[in-house]
């Protein structure tokens, strides 16, 4: 168990190092001049040269990458010309365009992403798993058909189509909800929930199709096992068999997939955030790309990569914890 965790975490660190080297290298080769972008439109060549020196862009790519890594583990100093700026570990760089440390920017945006992902998870764990269980109970019934159609429609179609339709119907026509604008939880919990409701429903319903299918398949698999036959022979009712015994088979895969999905979403449900204007990580990435703020882009990509890689490890651990038959090696 401990060996497994150490091995997997070691692998995760390796993957992140490779990813950071690749991303850093690619951006170093990029044709845009970070110094010019950081300095602004009306900079003289002398000023640009000065900024380049401050940013350390006159160094070789290896030196720059080493400095970046050093910043991540021990922190580093940035010079802004007049003063030096201390960037504590984990320092993911400094965005001269927004005049902010990348780590701070990301921490600033994380709550929005977390609110979206956690709320959506509540929905997929209730609606998704519930529908799946129901269709396993009433096999061949209407629920099952509806589920098949919904799953087919949801697999593949991008989440923003559902989101656009929800906005159009709920906000524009029925006017049950206002067009969402993000309000931080700490500012006004009621307004926060009210504004997040539609994004939650959109992302939650979208993911629910997948979870319903997974729940249904795992439950049906368990239903075919011998111990269920024994329960039947004892005269246990179908509802109790599905609800109390067969549904258990769905617990490990649902937990593992939830961990995986949550990790991906912490990395930014890019499309949902973009559609509803939620200032989370995904939106930070898009904004960073628009103005070619490379430090921000590199930082966000690495954080997202870390979230995904960690989620993979956690998913495996949770799966093993929920299903004793699985042996980690």
């Amino acid at each position: 168990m401990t060996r497994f965790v150490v091995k997997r975490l070691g692998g995760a660190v390796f993957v992140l190092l490779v990813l950071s080297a690749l991303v850093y290298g690619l951006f170093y080769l990029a044709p845009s001049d970070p110094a010019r972008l950081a300095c602004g439109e009306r900079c003289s060549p002398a000023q640009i040269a000065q900024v380049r020196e401050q940013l350390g862009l006159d160094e070789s790519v290896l030196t720059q990458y080493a400095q970046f890594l050093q910043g991540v583990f021990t922190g580093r100093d940035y010079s802004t010309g007049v003063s030096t700026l201390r960037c504590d570990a984990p320092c993911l760089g400094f965005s001269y365009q927004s005049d902010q440390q990348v780590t701070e920017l990301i921490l600033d945006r994380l709550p929005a992403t977390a609110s979206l992902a956690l709320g959506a998870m509540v929905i997929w764990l209730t609606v998704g798993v519930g529908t799946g269980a129901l269709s396993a109970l009433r096999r061949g019934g209407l629920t099952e058909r509806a589920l098949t159609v919904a799953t087919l429609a949801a697999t593949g179609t991008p989440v923003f189509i559902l989101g656009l339709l929800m906005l159009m119907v709920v906000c524009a026509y029925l006017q049950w909800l206002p067009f969402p604008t993000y309000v931080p939880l700490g500012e006004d919990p009621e307004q926060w929930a009210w504004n997040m409701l539609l994004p939650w429903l959109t992302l939650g319903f979208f993911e629910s199709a997948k979870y319903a299918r997974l729940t249904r398949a795992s439950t049906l698999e368990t239903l075919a096992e011998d111990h269920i036959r024994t329960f039947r022979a004892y005269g246990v009712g179908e509802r109790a068999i599905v609800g109390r015994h067969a549904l258990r088979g769905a617990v490990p895969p649902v937990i593992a997939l939830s961990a995986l999905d949550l990790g991906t979403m912490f990395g930014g449900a890019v499309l949902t955030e973009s559609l509803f204007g939620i200032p989370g990580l995904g939106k930070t990435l898009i904004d960073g790309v628009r103005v070619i703020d490379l430090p921000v882009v590199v930082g966000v990509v690495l954080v997202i990569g870390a979230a995904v890689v960690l989620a993979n490890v956690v998913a495996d651990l949770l799966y093993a914890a929920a299903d004793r038959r699985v042996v980690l090696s």
Partner: protein
Amino acid sequence: MSTTTLDLPAADAHRAPAAGGALRRLAARPAALISAGVLALLVVAALAAPLLTALEGQDPHTYHDSLVDSARGGVPIGSFGGVSADHWLGVEPGTGRDLFARLLYGARISLLVAVGATAVQVAIGVAVGLAAGLGNRFVDSLLSRVTDVMVSLPMLVLGIALTAVVHPDFPRPLLLILIIGALGWGGTARIVRAQTLSLKRLDFVAAARLGGNGPWRVARRELLPSLAAPVITYAAILLPVNIVVEASLSFVGVGVKPPTPSWGQMLSNAQTWFRADPMYVLLPAGLLFVTVLAFTVLGDAVRTALDPREASRLRIGTRKERRKTSS
């Protein structure tokens, strides 16, 4: 842990019946036939876009200020978003550009990028998978690790980030093809590696090797034909995924550049016109939805039709065929 389990044709696909059997099984499914019909229509319409728009007498780039109500913020004049004999699907709010033409030209971008990206993914995936399957242990474990990383990384996030790297003048559709292609080959590589490993043990491959053929000749002459079925199947699954990725990249504003029309970009613009011009939302959304759905259904049918296990199953074929075999 793999998150998705795909039921792909087994490696013994080389024993599959002739392609005619697969086609017949494909044709026996009404959903597959309808999907194929819809897609054929779409492809023909996209290819013939200049012809069709000429027939309509419009093009996707001309502004028609007279067709939008500037007093009401640019809402198209007339019902259903300004549908008329001149503008079959109405005009774009704000600019008055012809929607039919823009949707058709958007289909060209969508299909071009998706097909191109799928080709790149399959090419890289087959090469990496074959090399991993045929190479020594070191090569295999290295390539397998790289493949694992490629599969687990979030494609959309990296795709968005990568668009920031390239010079703004680089042709955008080609850039999208390369980015999606370079990020999405992991699944193909995994499948090809697994199939290669199991094919390698079979007698006919061993015979070819013993006959003194080099690994590349064996790969080309013996393995590739047998890999065709699983690779085609997987490509059919990749195609709709790539359409969605292109639409998503365009939706968040890093896809093709305006004025080149694309569905994702139209949907992104449509957000301000929900009430005033619902057609502007519904048309691209519906088109994207139908296209992806049709590709998904067809991909599923291709998988079943190419599956050799499916052919031997009793309950396959049309009802007429089944009656014939039972009598």
